[in-house]
């Protein structure tokens, strides 16, 4: 309880809470689309691929302002996706292996750059390695401002293209027959997902950010069959996981932020898996006992 009172009085804690709430909301909402389109592991590749982007952005601009980091990370993440697409389209290597290649190689390059940067005699480089596991306590007001503005843009674009993205998730062929430019929409949605991942890197870290895309969305999926409710719930779950994890990590010594946030998100997921009405495991076993066959409506028509 004390902690929650501190939220209103303690400046640092408030900044951290707002920051992680933003990242939870954005990654939860956009994660819903990734999960529904069976691209859960793309987030894993993107977040790892972002590391060399962050390092290069720092090497080129010599600044650690959040905007520079976000642009660098997004470009690298996008490059990663392009390479995955090129590999899958031109060779017989399957998507899972292509994702693995990008994830590991980009991350390796990032680690090399990171060790090189750490050798530079420049006080400014300190803290770049915080991008590995994230450090919410290091969030500053300027970070929050940048994150906030970008998140508002991402969320409003999601609302603006609501029905287009819905079509893209559930019936892209129908969408194309209606005359929507599905390819462009695909690229737009992918870009939004990349940005959603990149925003959270500072707090959660490149290693575990993918979980923030998958876990809240998969949890939300258990409670509803409607896209709108799923996106809102996922955003809420993401925010709760983010704030709880960040607060525990900032107030307790020696607990890294990223892993703590991921643990919170996983707990929410487990809870949903067990207790969600209709789909949840407990509900289903109750239904089975009373000899009712549960009617599981798939959102996904496939």
């Amino acid at each position, binding site marked *: 309880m004390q902690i929650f009172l501190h939220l209103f009085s303690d400046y640092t804690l408030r900044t951290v809470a707002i920051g992680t709430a933003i990242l939870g909301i954005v990654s939860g909402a956009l994660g819903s689309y990734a999960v529904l389109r*069976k*691209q859960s592991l793309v987030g894993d590749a993107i977040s790892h691929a972002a590391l060399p982007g962050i390092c290069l952005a720092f090497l080129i601009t010599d600044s650690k302002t959040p905007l520079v980091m976000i642009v660098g990370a997004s470009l690298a993440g996008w490059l990663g996706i392009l390479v995955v697409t090129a590999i899958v389209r031109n060779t017989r*290597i399957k998507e899972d292996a292509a994702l*693995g290649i990008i994830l590991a190689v980009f991350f390796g390059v990032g680690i090399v750059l990171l060790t090189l940067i750490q050798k530079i005699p420049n006080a400014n480089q300190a803290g770049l390695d915080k991008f590995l596991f994230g450090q919410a306590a290091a969030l500053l007001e300027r970070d929050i401002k940048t994150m906030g503005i970008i998140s508002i843009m991402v969320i409003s674009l999601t609302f603006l293209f609501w029905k287009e993205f819905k079509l893209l998730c559930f019936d892209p062929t129908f969408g194309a027959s209606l005359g929507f430019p599905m390819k462009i929409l695909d690229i737009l949605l992918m870009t939004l997902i990349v940005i959603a991942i990149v925003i959270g890197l500072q707090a959660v870290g490149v290693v*575990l950010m*993918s979980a923030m895309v998958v876990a809240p969305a998969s949890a939300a999926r258990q409670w509803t069959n409607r896209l709108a409710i799923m996106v809102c719930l996922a955003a809420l779950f993401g925010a709760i996981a983010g704030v709880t994890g960040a607060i525990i990590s900032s107030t307790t010594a020696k607990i*890294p932020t*990223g892993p703590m946030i991921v643990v919170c998100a996983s707990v929410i997921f487990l809870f949903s898996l067990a207790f969600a009405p209709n789909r949840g495991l407990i509900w289903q076993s109750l239904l089975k006992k009373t000899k009712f066959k549960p009617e599981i409506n798939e959102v996904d028509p496939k």
Partner: protein
Amino acid sequence: MSPQIEILLVAIIVSIACALPGVFLILRRMALMSDAISHSVLLGIVVGFFIIGQVDSPILLIFAAGTGVATVSLVELLHRTQLVKEDAAIGIVFPALFSIGVILVTRYANNVHLDQDVVLLGEIALAPFDRVTILGLSLPRGLVVMTLILVTNLSCIVIFYKELKISTFDAGLATALGFSPVFIHYGLMSLVSITAVGAFHAVGAVLVVALMIVPPATAYLLTNRLSIMLAISSLVGTISAIMGYFVAAKMDASVAGSMASMTGICFLLTFLIAPKRGILAIIYRRFRQKWEFSQTLLLIHLVNHEGKENEAEECNVNRINQHLSWNQTFTQNVILYAEKKGSIQIEEQILRLTNRGREIADQAFAR
């Protein structure tokens, strides 16, 4: 042995030990399982450490391998509830286990040499400092452990070669012949887990993935034979390890990161210049097909008008483009191409077929 050579040896053995089971992961479309397992073995190592109290006891290997297999089972369990798709199940299970592992490490195991950086990067540069004495020889522990793992992997693959091969390429046939796919599946997963634990100390969680996936994927572009693929993967792994080590030493950067980058460069080069499957080969083939096809069209046109009264008009060098509806320059290029290939001759501004040209046209008709 000098420390450099010892580090290099460990690096080479790690990369070969990873590449061998990696081949089967790629072929079975389970590449990302290596990602999941290599992360979650951390939890096994940490829990094992709390129970045994030693960070380098061989019993830790068993704990970690158990965690690896548990990860696979958890993913399957989640998937089987039909509430989550398989990719989402993987994406939830291993970050959760890895997170718990990282939290435990940072919070309770700070005085041991297991920290965040080791988790991600391993400690291959420290390999020569941790030694054991076997048969009077003082060897780096990493070298001994990884050699044992390599021998295990190699002998499992040799002993169960045909079982692995059949169940990988034709699971139905394997079941019909009476092999248990479940046994082979979990056996392979245990191998991957043990390898991941051993390699974990050397190269860290994420870069194990690089050594397991990238060399086999490179080999996959070069061959259709399983045995050759295993050999090429090991070779690519070795080359990456050697180059990675020297580049890292030159730039004073992370050895593990540099090895992973080198696997990437090997893959990129192969992706570009592999015979048959490389990008350049594909582009060249498409380019050649375009000219071959145009030449055939031209020859067919010539055959149609050969000996007819309008031959002089239809087959005139300067006007044939109108009859084929091609543009002027393109037509000139096709004529040059065909002339070079010896399928046509130009006699007094009129295109004439050679015997070779007639053959090509006949073949096209025969199709």
